[in-house]
Protein backbone atom coordinates (compact mmCIF):
# COMPACT_ATOMS: atom_id res chain seq x y z
CA UNK A 1 0.00 0.00 0.00
CA UNK A 2 2.84 2.31 0.51
CA UNK A 3 6.48 2.38 0.01
CA UNK A 4 7.07 1.27 3.59
CA UNK A 5 8.21 -2.33 3.93
CA UNK A 6 5.44 -4.88 4.08
CA UNK A 7 7.17 -6.91 6.72
CA UNK A 8 7.24 -3.99 9.09
CA UNK A 9 3.57 -3.32 8.63
CA UNK A 10 2.45 -6.85 9.39
CA UNK A 11 4.69 -7.05 12.43
CA UNK A 12 3.58 -3.62 13.54
CA UNK A 13 -0.04 -4.72 13.69
CA UNK A 14 0.74 -7.68 15.95
CA UNK A 15 3.32 -5.88 18.02
CA UNK A 16 0.89 -3.03 18.68
CA UNK A 17 -1.54 -5.30 20.53
CA UNK A 18 1.15 -6.99 22.55
CA UNK A 19 2.58 -3.68 23.68
CA UNK A 20 -0.83 -2.22 24.45
CA UNK A 21 -1.85 -5.21 26.59
CA UNK A 22 1.42 -5.07 28.33
CA UNK A 23 1.20 -1.37 29.09
CA UNK A 24 -2.31 -1.78 30.54
CA UNK A 25 -0.98 -4.67 32.55
CA UNK A 26 1.80 -2.49 33.87
CA UNK A 27 -0.61 0.32 34.63
CA UNK A 28 -3.04 -1.96 36.40
CA UNK A 29 -0.70 -3.50 38.87
CA UNK A 30 1.36 -0.38 39.37
CA UNK A 31 0.46 -0.23 43.01
CA UNK A 32 1.95 -3.50 44.10
CA UNK A 33 4.68 -4.40 41.71
CA UNK A 34 6.88 -2.28 39.50
CA UNK A 35 4.77 -0.38 36.99
CA UNK A 36 2.72 2.74 37.19
CA UNK A 37 1.35 5.56 35.11
CA UNK A 38 4.58 6.91 33.69
CA UNK A 39 5.97 3.69 32.31
CA UNK A 40 2.63 2.44 31.02
CA UNK A 41 1.98 5.79 29.36
CA UNK A 42 5.27 5.78 27.55
CA UNK A 43 4.81 2.21 26.44
CA UNK A 44 1.41 2.93 24.95
CA UNK A 45 2.95 5.93 23.20
CA UNK A 46 5.69 3.60 21.93
CA UNK A 47 3.03 1.30 20.55
CA UNK A 48 1.43 4.14 18.61
CA UNK A 49 4.86 5.26 17.42
CA UNK A 50 5.42 1.81 15.99
CA UNK A 51 2.26 2.40 14.01
CA UNK A 52 3.56 5.77 12.91
CA UNK A 53 6.76 4.16 11.74
CA UNK A 54 5.10 1.43 9.85
CA UNK A 55 2.35 3.46 8.27
CA UNK A 56 2.06 7.15 7.51
CA UNK A 57 0.33 9.96 9.29
CA UNK A 58 -2.87 9.82 7.29
CA UNK A 59 -3.34 6.14 8.09
CA UNK A 60 -2.76 6.63 11.77
CA UNK A 61 -5.11 9.59 11.82
CA UNK A 62 -7.76 7.36 10.36
CA UNK A 63 -6.94 4.54 12.71
CA UNK A 64 -6.77 6.73 15.83
CA UNK A 65 -9.15 9.65 15.20
CA UNK A 66 -8.64 11.14 18.66
CA UNK A 67 -6.86 14.46 19.14
CA UNK A 68 -4.13 13.82 21.67
CA UNK A 69 -4.49 17.19 23.34
CA UNK A 70 -7.84 16.18 24.74
CA UNK A 71 -6.13 13.19 26.30
CA UNK A 72 -3.82 15.48 28.23
CA UNK A 73 -6.67 17.61 29.47
CA UNK A 74 -8.69 14.56 30.47
CA UNK A 75 -5.73 13.05 32.28
CA UNK A 76 -5.05 16.22 34.26
CA UNK A 77 -8.71 16.53 35.12
CA UNK A 78 -8.79 12.97 36.38
CA UNK A 79 -5.64 13.33 38.43
CA UNK A 80 -6.75 16.56 40.06
CA UNK A 81 -10.26 15.19 40.35
CA UNK A 82 -9.11 12.28 42.49
CA UNK A 83 -7.18 14.76 44.58
CA UNK A 84 -10.16 17.03 45.06
CA UNK A 85 -12.40 14.01 45.55
CA UNK A 86 -10.40 13.27 48.68
CA UNK A 87 -11.29 16.67 50.00
CA UNK A 88 -14.98 15.95 49.64
CA UNK A 89 -14.69 13.39 52.37
CA UNK A 90 -12.95 16.05 54.42
CA UNK A 91 -9.61 14.32 53.86
CA UNK A 92 -6.47 16.22 53.07
CA UNK A 93 -6.09 17.06 49.38
CA UNK A 94 -4.81 14.09 47.38
CA UNK A 95 -5.31 11.58 50.15
CA UNK A 96 -5.78 8.08 48.74
CA UNK A 97 -8.07 5.46 50.14
CA UNK A 98 -8.40 1.81 49.17
CA UNK A 99 -10.96 -0.97 49.46
CA UNK A 100 -10.61 -4.66 48.93
CA UNK A 101 -13.22 -6.13 46.65
CA UNK A 102 -13.71 -9.80 45.96
CA UNK A 103 -14.63 -10.38 42.35
CA UNK A 104 -15.89 -13.89 41.57
CA UNK A 105 -13.33 -14.70 38.95
CA UNK A 106 -10.33 -12.60 39.84
CA UNK A 107 -10.34 -13.18 43.58
CA UNK A 108 -9.07 -10.38 45.77
CA UNK A 109 -8.95 -7.14 43.86
CA UNK A 110 -7.75 -3.96 45.38
CA UNK A 111 -9.59 -0.84 44.26
CA UNK A 112 -7.64 2.23 45.11
CA UNK A 113 -8.18 5.84 44.20
CA UNK A 114 -4.48 5.73 43.50
CA UNK A 115 -5.32 3.76 40.38
CA UNK A 116 -7.51 6.61 39.14
CA UNK A 117 -4.70 8.97 39.82
CA UNK A 118 -2.35 6.65 37.96
CA UNK A 119 -4.79 6.43 35.10
CA UNK A 120 -4.81 10.23 34.96
CA UNK A 121 -1.04 10.19 34.86
CA UNK A 122 -1.16 7.55 32.13
CA UNK A 123 -3.50 9.67 30.01
CA UNK A 124 -1.35 12.76 30.40
CA UNK A 125 1.84 10.94 29.49
CA UNK A 126 0.33 9.25 26.44
CA UNK A 127 -1.34 12.45 25.29
CA UNK A 128 1.75 14.53 25.88
CA UNK A 129 4.20 12.25 24.10
CA UNK A 130 1.97 11.69 21.13
CA UNK A 131 1.18 15.40 20.77
CA UNK A 132 4.86 16.16 20.61
CA UNK A 133 5.66 13.31 18.26
CA UNK A 134 2.77 14.02 15.91
CA UNK A 135 3.53 17.77 15.96
CA UNK A 136 7.14 17.24 15.01
CA UNK A 137 6.27 14.39 12.69
CA UNK A 138 3.83 16.47 10.68
CA UNK A 139 6.41 19.16 10.25
Amino acid at each position, binding site marked *: *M*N*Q*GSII*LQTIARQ*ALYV*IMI*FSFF*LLGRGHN*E*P*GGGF*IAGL*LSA*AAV*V*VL*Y*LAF*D*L*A*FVKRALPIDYKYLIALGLLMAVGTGVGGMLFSEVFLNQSFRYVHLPFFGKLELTTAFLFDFGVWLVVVGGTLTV*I*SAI*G*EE
Partner: protein
Amino acid sequence: MMLDMVVDVGLIALSIAVVLCFYRVMKGPSVPDRALALDTITTNFLGIILLMAIRLRSELYFEVVLVLAILGFLGTTALAKFIAKGVIIDRDNN
Protein backbone atom coordinates in the same frame (compact mmCIF):
# COMPACT_ATOMS: atom_id res chain seq x y z
CA MET B 1 25.11 -25.19 42.54
CA MET B 2 25.72 -26.21 38.99
CA LEU B 3 23.08 -23.85 37.59
CA ASP B 4 24.55 -20.78 39.28
CA MET B 5 28.00 -21.68 37.99
CA VAL B 6 26.64 -21.94 34.44
CA VAL B 7 24.82 -18.64 34.77
CA ASP B 8 27.99 -16.92 35.96
CA VAL B 9 29.95 -18.25 33.01
CA GLY B 10 27.13 -17.08 30.76
CA LEU B 11 27.19 -13.60 32.28
CA ILE B 12 30.92 -13.26 31.70
CA ALA B 13 30.60 -14.48 28.14
CA LEU B 14 27.83 -12.03 27.41
CA SER B 15 29.84 -9.18 28.87
CA ILE B 16 32.64 -10.01 26.47
CA ALA B 17 30.08 -10.07 23.67
CA VAL B 18 28.91 -6.60 24.71
CA VAL B 19 32.46 -5.30 24.68
CA LEU B 20 32.97 -6.78 21.22
CA CYS B 21 29.88 -5.12 19.87
CA PHE B 22 30.95 -1.93 21.55
CA TYR B 23 34.13 -2.12 19.55
CA ARG B 24 32.00 -2.24 16.39
CA VAL B 25 30.00 0.79 17.57
CA MET B 26 33.24 2.68 17.94
CA LYS B 27 34.86 1.59 14.72
CA GLY B 28 31.87 0.98 12.48
CA PRO B 29 32.70 2.73 9.17
CA SER B 30 29.09 3.56 8.30
CA VAL B 31 26.21 4.68 10.51
CA PRO B 32 24.10 1.53 9.84
CA ASP B 33 27.01 -0.48 11.20
CA ARG B 34 26.87 1.43 14.41
CA ALA B 35 23.13 1.12 14.60
CA LEU B 36 23.30 -2.61 14.06
CA ALA B 37 26.01 -2.97 16.68
CA LEU B 38 23.87 -1.05 19.12
CA ASP B 39 20.95 -3.35 18.33
CA THR B 40 23.11 -6.36 19.06
CA ILE B 41 24.22 -4.80 22.32
CA THR B 42 20.57 -4.44 23.26
CA THR B 43 19.94 -8.07 22.42
CA ASN B 44 22.95 -9.04 24.54
CA PHE B 45 21.55 -6.97 27.38
CA LEU B 46 18.31 -8.90 27.07
CA GLY B 47 20.27 -12.09 27.46
CA ILE B 48 22.14 -10.71 30.48
CA ILE B 49 18.95 -9.62 32.20
CA LEU B 50 17.31 -13.00 31.61
CA LEU B 51 20.31 -14.74 33.11
CA MET B 52 20.20 -12.32 36.03
CA ALA B 53 16.54 -13.18 36.52
CA ILE B 54 17.42 -16.86 36.75
CA ARG B 55 20.41 -16.11 38.98
CA LEU B 56 18.31 -14.03 41.40
CA ARG B 57 15.26 -16.20 41.00
CA SER B 58 12.90 -13.19 40.87
CA GLU B 59 10.25 -12.49 38.33
CA LEU B 60 10.52 -8.75 38.56
CA TYR B 61 12.86 -8.48 35.63
CA PHE B 62 10.57 -9.73 32.93
CA GLU B 63 9.05 -6.27 32.62
CA VAL B 64 12.45 -4.81 32.05
CA VAL B 65 13.18 -7.41 29.40
CA LEU B 66 10.03 -6.76 27.46
CA VAL B 67 10.35 -2.98 27.70
CA LEU B 68 13.94 -3.20 26.54
CA ALA B 69 12.90 -5.44 23.66
CA ILE B 70 10.14 -3.07 22.58
CA LEU B 71 12.29 0.00 22.81
CA GLY B 72 15.20 -1.70 21.10
CA PHE B 73 12.95 -2.62 18.24
CA LEU B 74 11.46 0.88 18.15
CA GLY B 75 14.84 2.55 18.27
CA THR B 76 16.36 0.51 15.52
CA THR B 77 13.38 0.84 13.22
CA ALA B 78 13.22 4.61 13.72
CA LEU B 79 16.94 4.80 13.09
CA ALA B 80 16.58 2.74 9.97
CA LYS B 81 13.86 4.96 8.57
CA PHE B 82 15.84 8.01 9.48
CA ILE B 83 18.93 6.76 7.68
CA ALA B 84 16.96 5.66 4.67
CA LYS B 85 14.63 8.52 4.10
CA GLY B 86 15.79 11.25 6.43
CA VAL B 87 12.28 11.44 7.81
CA ILE B 88 10.77 9.13 10.35
CA ILE B 89 7.05 9.76 10.08
CA ASP B 90 6.22 10.50 6.51
CA ARG B 91 3.13 12.38 5.67
CA ASP B 92 1.44 10.05 3.23
CA ASN B 93 3.59 8.57 0.60
CA ASN B 94 1.19 6.34 -1.31
